[in-house]
């Protein structure tokens, strides 16, 4: 016999869909089917069932092979490593729950770590822009119920957030948007002809790296001022048309992704995109929202916000919280050889950091906490597998619009496996013992 768990939350991307149905065995030990999720979301659940899953911590030997160790030994190694380090980097935090993030902060405080999350290589620039200029935004339901102008800039939800368009942005019918897709105008700005762009009423196929100019041009066009013939490869008539389309809407929303946060201009692009949104509020209602990647990267920024006052790149090494992106950000620290130990949880820098940074992790005492084998676990000295958050243990996560949702446990983890939260609790207790506090 099987049972079906409803209203399950998908712990994969920042869309944080909460309407999944999961079929599990009667004893709750096996997960059979996942309904309503997109392909990548479903895969995350099914992955937990891999027969060859690593279920015990392991330590790399001199000769490069792994030796299985106990959780006690893993806790001891981690606590010692963090307590002995002058300035450890505690990186990741985007694929775990807020409870674990919160205990992580306490450890970071006790050992004087630098706490950084994956925003450092994706939407950190957006967070900096918000510090410059603010951000008029909304929840995704406002988009569903009101928005008739949808602009995707430098993002491709069709692949990265597959259910975003059907749940919130293009297709759904809401209270004031009874016609669904038919009542909306969709604009995509992307140098590539993506699957998202193929759905657009207008696709501005901008030249790579000219986002700032085009955003600026829109602000000029809103005011009806003169433009050069082409901006970023887009003819001025098109720009005027897009400006008019946005202004004539009742509610406009701009979604933006890494195509614009990590291209030339970085946070300045986002400053300008937010300025576009501010300007639009002179004519109609407008909002803007980053397409956050990991399902709880937003949550780690929130937790650190209320505990330390900064959303990422928080340096606790001097006994109080400092924040200075470019200085206190992971890659800058690694490249300058400023950190002497690396702790990774809930992310895979081995796959996403520049090779020069990955090499620095390899050279140092390092621990990776991850249910999977990843490029990061391959370069760390100790790998601690843990239960999947949102599959084998619940906990709070924040959607891309900062709405907190509680993920659910649907299936038992393999016998004897720890959760992030339990592991961190143990490390915290041991660190306190070592430090005598």
């Amino acid at each position, binding site marked *: 016999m099987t049972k079906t768990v409803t209203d399950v939350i998908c712990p994969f991307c920042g869309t944080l869909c909460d309407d999944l149905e999961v079929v599990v065995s009667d004893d709750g030990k096996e997960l059979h089917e996942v309904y309503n999720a997109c392909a990548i979301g479903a895969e995350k659940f099914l992955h937990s069932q891999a027969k060859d899953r690593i279920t015990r911590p392991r330590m790399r030997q001199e000769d490069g092979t792994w030796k299985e160790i106990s959780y006690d030994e893993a806790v001891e190694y981690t606590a010692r490593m963090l307590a002995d380090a002058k300035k450890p980097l505690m990186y990741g935090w985007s694929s775990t729950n807020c*409870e674990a993030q919160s205990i992580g902060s306490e450890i970071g405080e006790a050992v004087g770590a630098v706490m950084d999350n994956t925003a450092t290589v994706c939407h950190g620039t957006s967070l900096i822009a918000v510090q410059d*200029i603010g951000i008029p935004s909304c929840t995704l*339901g406002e988009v569903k119920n009101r928005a008739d102008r949808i602009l995707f800039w430098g993002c491709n939800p069709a692949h990265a957030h597959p259910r975003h368009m059907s749940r919130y942005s293009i297709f759904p019918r809401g209270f004031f948007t009874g016609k669904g897709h038919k009542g909306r105008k969709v604009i995509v700005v992307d140098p590539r002809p993506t699957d998202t762009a193929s759905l657009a009423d207008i696709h501005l196929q901008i030249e790579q790296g000219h986002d700032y100019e085009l955003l600026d041009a829109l602000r000029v066009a809103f005011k009806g001022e003169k433009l050069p013939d082409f901006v970023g490869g887009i003819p001025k008539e098109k720009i005027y048309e897009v400006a008019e389309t946005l202004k004539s809407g*009742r*509610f406009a929303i701009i979604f933006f992704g890494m195509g614009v946060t990590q291209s030339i201009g970085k946070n300045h692009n986002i400053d300008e995109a937010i300025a576009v949104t501010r300007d639009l509020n002179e004519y109609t209602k407008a909002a803007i929202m980053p397409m956050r990647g990991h399902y709880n990267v937003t949550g780690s920024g929130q937790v650190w916000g209320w505990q330390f*006052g900064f959303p990422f790149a928080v340096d*606790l090494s001097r*006994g109080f919280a400092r924040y200075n992106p470019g200085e206190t950000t992971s890659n800058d620290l690694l490249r300058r050889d400023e950190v002497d130990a690396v702790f990774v949880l809930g992310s895979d820098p081995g796959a996403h950091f520049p090779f020069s940074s990955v090499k620095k992790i390899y050279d140092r005492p390092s621990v990776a906490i991850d249910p999977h084998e990843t490029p990061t676990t391959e370069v760390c000295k100790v790998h601690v597998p843990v239960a999947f958050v949102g599959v084998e243990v619940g906990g709070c996560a924040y959607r891309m619009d900062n709405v907190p949702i*509680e993920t659910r446990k649907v299936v038992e983890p393999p016998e004897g496996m720890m959760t992030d939260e339990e592991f961190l609790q143990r490390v915290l207790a041991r660190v306190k013992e070592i430090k005598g506090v």
Partner: protein
Amino acid sequence: MAEYLIKNGFVFDPVLGIRGDKADIAIKDGKIVETTAVKSPKVIDAAGKTVMAGGVDIHAHVAGPKVNVGRNFRPEDKLFGYKPKSGIERMQGGFSVPTTIRTGYNYARMGYTTVMEAAMPPLYARHTHEEMRDTPILDQGAYPVFGNNWFVLEYLKNHEIENTAAYIAWLLRATKGYAVKVVNPGGTEAWGWGLNCENVHDPVPYFDITPAQIIKGLIEANEYLGLPHSMHMHANNLGNPGNYTTTLDSFRLSEGIKPNSKFGRDQVMHHTHVQFHSYGGDSWANVDSRAKEIMDYVNSHDNITIDMGQVTLDETTTMTADGPFEHHLTELNHLKWANVDVELETGSGVVPYVYSPGIKVCAIQWCIGLELALLAKDPMRIFMTTDHPNAGPFIRYPRIMKWLMSQDARNQQFDAFKHKDKVIEATNLAGIDRELGLYEIAQMTRAGPAKSLGLAHMYGGLAPGLEADVAVFDFNPNEPYAPDDIEKAFSSAEHLFKTGVQVIVDHEIASNGNKRTLWVNAKVNENPQVMRDVKEKFLRYYTVTLNNYEVAGHHYVPNPYVIEVDATQ
């Protein structure tokens, strides 16, 4: 639990009617008890010191999404005064939007033990609770906002009070909320389209209802349920010259309604941060104080309580569910602007602000707040707040005490204004020589707010049976003192007890306490229509499912204090 005896202090307690007489206060099992009930107590020598109940803040923005926006988007707010971890104290930072940890400690240092979060967007209730959980020491509760909620708008359009009440009861339970908050009724929904409702008869776009109907209906629903606190009101037209008429119009909607609550409150409307709602004139050039008109009304109607919203002349971070107001403000000062509209429920905005003594309007605002308090006939019905952090950070409460207690201190401030003469002309404050005493301060910061919240059976006084929340200040009211001594003494409690635990010893934080979250569980008769409406709206318009909406107990509300209300009769 340890027993304590606080001996020989000068006690100020409106509940017992003690006006600075010497008295002993005994603590046992977390409660205040008769002095004869303690056997071998630890003795605190309070001779020559002031003893009061723990402070109760009826209205502050200290936890939740917009507060955290304020923290995260203002790194500059933490430039100075970051405090390293030391002993029991964790790292703390921030001035106008402090971290949760600093919030708890700083309130405790001022002798406060209970603080209500004044606006919780229901969809973000988990966030609010997570922050409150991480705020040490204080007992806290949060008010979910109702004034722009689609269910409320639709029920009240047809004057369906019973359905509104059933929905309120459901939402309080789902969000673990404490009271019915209303912010710019109808106006924030209008802001979903970039519009606003500026007076009580402005129709709400598409909803066929007016702010007046919303306000009156919510008061009636609140009394139908008999909730501990009354409807908690932030009226339309906040912060605009000439808005005192809107405020009076809003007050009047409470006329003829009697409180129906077994929790001992006398009001049916608490109107918050009234300073922002007491302006005359028709532009910033001729704005003037209408505190007198406002207080004439309040003084003659005992079913209303208010709080001040005192401007403290600091750089701060404004934040409110009044979305259109924050947009208006960013257009005025051109500083950064954050806005979040929340589906079916509410909206909000955040904008930094500098209240400069060099700006005439800021100085007028400063006067108006103090006038409200000094013109009050009954200090049990007007409470000290800064609408933290909107008119200034809460850490300025001791400074406000100084201004209220000393005309000299006020005159010093007048002398520091750039436009002193114009400010005096536009306000009444310079002509007021009243100086409040500590007894009245205790009414405005302890007994009064506790009563208004329906929590007089727990907080606000030192009578046996109440929670043992007691503050001892190094202040001798019988010796001569300079105005600044008041600010200094009340900024740093010498001792503080929170439900019987000594959390401050000799001015130092000694414990993170055992903080509780207060919420109200109102029982109503089964209401299939409302439950059907809830299901339907979640299915069609919300982006989370109904089953993922409720804040379930455990790690969000680890230490709940549930107040039960039975409205099934």
